[in-house]
C-alpha cells in the first residue's frame, strides 16, 4: 500500500476544510477512512500467538 497516499488525502481534507468546501471535505474524509482501514488490513500479516 502506498503509505504517502493516506497523508496526501488528509492534506486534501484539510485544504478543502480551510477553503470552506464542506461536502468535498466529508467525501475526502470518508475516502481517507476507507483507505486507512484497507491499509491496516494489508499490514496485519503477523499472526498473534495469544489466547484470551
Amino acid at each position, binding site marked *: *500500500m*502506498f*503509505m*504517502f497516499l*493516506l*497523508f*496526501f488525502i*488528509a*492534506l486534501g*481534507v*484539510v*485544504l478543502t*476544510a*480551510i477553503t*470552506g468546501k*464542506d461536502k468535498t*471535505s*466529508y467525501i475526502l*474524509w470518508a475516502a*481517507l*477512512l476507507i483507505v*486507512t*482501514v484497507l*491499509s*491496516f488490513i494489508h*499490514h*496485519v500479516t*503477523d499472526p*498473534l*500467538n*495469544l489466547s484470551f
Partner: protein
Amino acid sequence: MKTKTHPTTFVHLVNIVGLLGVCVPLVVAFYYQLVMDELPCPLCLLQRIGLIIAGFGFLFNVYFGLRNLHYGMVIIGSVLTGIMASRQVFLHIMPGDTGYGSAFLGLHFYTWSLVTSVVIIVATAVVLAISDMNASIRPLNIPPALFRIVGWGFLLLIAANLVSTVLECGGGQCADNPIIYELLSK
C-alpha cells in the same frame, strides 16, 4: 469560513483545544523522528493517520459549525487509532519483548497512542454532554484569526508528515523496521 456567521462559544474553544490536543502527539512523534532519528514503522504511521482522522472532527466543528456528525468523526478516528495501537501493543506484549522504539515515561509510543485515543473518546463524551448547554452559554467572540492559525497549523503538520513519509518510503510500501530514508539514501 462558516464560523464567521455564527457567534462562537466556549464549546468552539474546547474544540480548538481538542485539535491542539491531537497535534501534541503528532509533534512529539515528529520530535523523536527528527531529533532522535527514530523512523516510524507502517503501524506507527497508521496511528498518526488515525489521530489525524479524529482531529478532522474537531477541525470541522471549528470551520463548519458544531454538529454531532463531527463528534462522530472524532470517535470513529479514535476507535480506529485504538484498534491499530492495540494491535501493536499485542505484537510486543510477550515477556522478554523489548518493544519497538524508545519509551516515554515507561510506555512505548504505541501504548501512548492507545491511551491518547481513549482520552479523546472520553473528552468527546464530556464535550457532547456540555454541548446541549451551548445555547445558554454567553458568546465568547473568539477572533477568527485563531481558527485560521489552528487550521493552518494542522495543515502544516499533515504536509510535514506527507513529505517525511515520501522521503522514508518513496512511492511504495514502507519497510517493516525502517532505519533509513529510502529516497535520501539513493
